[in-house]
């Protein structure tokens, strides 16, 4: 480890300990976003050359794919997927935690592993740890784009402004419930840049969607068949490893895994997650729905927009 990166790590550890805000980073910029994530990779220019130009390529690709109504998927790989696909009980991949209630021996893990190797595009964050894990999980696959791009298109709201008529959202039912309520407010719609367009909202069970993959696919199929939307962003946890390949055959569209981007849309994201440093979390008035949400860690909600109760 270089002195520079060791220094950055110590500094970040101290800042996190004091809960002080990290300064916005000036490397790896994605237009319209702020990144205050603590990873030293975001402070080291050697991790990814041509980060910004390749982001433009990524967005151009999305535009072409949506314009041609191509059916394809973008699978975002992270450390949780590493443990899940290995059948290791760790974090979100631990039985009983979020993705599954059964033990790994009771679910069809080989099917998830097999389907995960059939994705059209793979996204992975730029820090080394993630890329090393990716190479171990998928030794014969290449990373198509940094996973940060999928955060960037949501955090900047570019994806809503560009595909307002064509976009749908797939996520955990409780979070989609929140998004559905939030979409009733013009303030929220204007923030996203949706105007009067309404995205299709597709729900999956918030918990244990991996227990019975066929059942989850069936639930999504019933909601998505007949949709006219050409691009869906999704954050569905580990079930994506089995779901994404099915989706492209159920309804022709671009399926872009944005992970915690769905939390941002539901107003429950921690702004220290990569590229969400400038995000505004919108909150419904007097809603008891938040206690039903399976929160990821939200120690730093950042800017919060409390919507007023509508009386008229």
């Amino acid at each position, binding site marked *: 480890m270089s002195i520079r990166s060791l220094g950055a790590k110590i500094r970040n550890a101290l800042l996190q300990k004091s809960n*002080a*805000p990290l300064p916005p980073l000036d490397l790896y910029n994605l237009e319209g976003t702020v990144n205050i994530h603590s990873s030293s990779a975001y402070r080291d220019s050697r991790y990814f050359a041509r980060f910004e130009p390749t982001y433009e390529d990524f967005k151009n690709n999305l535009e072409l794919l949506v314009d041609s109504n191509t059916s394809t998927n973008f699978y975002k790989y992270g450390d949780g997927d590493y443990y899940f696909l290995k059948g290791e009980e760790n974090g979100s991949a631990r039985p009983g935690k979020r993705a599954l209630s059964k033990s790994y021996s009771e679910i069809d893990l080989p099917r998830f592993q097999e389907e995960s190797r059939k994705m059209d595009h793979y996204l992975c964050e730029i820090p080394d740890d993630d890329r090393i894990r990716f190479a171990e999980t998928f030794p014969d696959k290449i990373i198509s784009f940094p996973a940060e791009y999928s955060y960037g298109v949501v955090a900047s709201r570019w994806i809503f402004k560009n595909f307002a008529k064509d976009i749908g959202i797939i996520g955990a039912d409780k979070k989609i419930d929140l998004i559905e309520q939030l979409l*009733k*407010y*013009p*303030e929220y719609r*204007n*923030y996203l*840049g949706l105007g009067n367009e309404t995205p299709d909202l597709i729900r999956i069970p918030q918990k244990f969607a991996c227990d019975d993959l066929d059942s989850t696919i069936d639930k999504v199929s019933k909601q998505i068949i007949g949709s006219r939307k050409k691009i869906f962003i999704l954050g569905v946890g580990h079930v994506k490893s089995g779901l994404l390949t099915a989706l492209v055959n159920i309804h022709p569209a671009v399926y872009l895994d944005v992970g915690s981007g769905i939390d941002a849309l539901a107003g429950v994201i921690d702004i220290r997650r990569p590229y969400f440093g*400038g995000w*505004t979390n919108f909150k419904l*008035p007097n809603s008891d729905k938040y206690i039903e949400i399976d929160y990821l860690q939200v120690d*730093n*909600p*950042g*800017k*919060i*927009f*409390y*919507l*007023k*109760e*509508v009386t008229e």
Partner: protein
Amino acid sequence: MKTKANLAVVFLSVLVKSKGKSRQFRIKQYAQAISQLSKWLTDCDIILVENTGFMDQYPRTNPLHECMVKHNILSLPANTGLRNKGLGELEMFAAASEALPFENWKNILYITGRQFHITPYAIEKALNIESGLLVSNPSFTFVDGNTFQPGTQNQWNDMFFAGDSSTMNSYLEHYKKNAFRLEKLGLSSEELLWDFTTQENIRIQVLPALGLLRSQGKNPRRLSDWHVI
């Protein structure tokens, strides 16, 4: 649901260093001021922007909270804000424009929250701007008979001003471009507003007075600190 024609951005910094009775008085004062202000803001959406963590950290059983939840609130992290109050408000104004893109409204009103609007005069003028900015640089008339005239003419009062949304967006751009001058050269937010109108040749309408009652000192119970602008 539709938005109204205009948007009022109202700034609050509730949990400053005051404690005990002084803090309670401040909270009550804000509550009364916001309540009074909202009566005049017809055909106007209101966004309250708070930057001391009041909404998240303070018990909700207080008159200000009850008053605030009737409006949209943008709560900024408690550590948000620069040293200077005027600059802090500009930072809050930028955050408001990010959350509520101004182009969705005809006119945008910029209002410091802890002051009493004793007449709708300035607000009515603001709601009827056709283009450019409504500004002022009025004298302060204290209730004990003293008068204070702002020392320099190269400034516009920024406790209250307004403009069409395009001009207000341009002002934000001007602020972002010149933020370093504000910090390094000690330029005030009032001077920045003047800078903007002169450098960008903005069409302005100047009000002789604002009709605001406010207290300048740290002890709002001291009558001699109260004045009309």
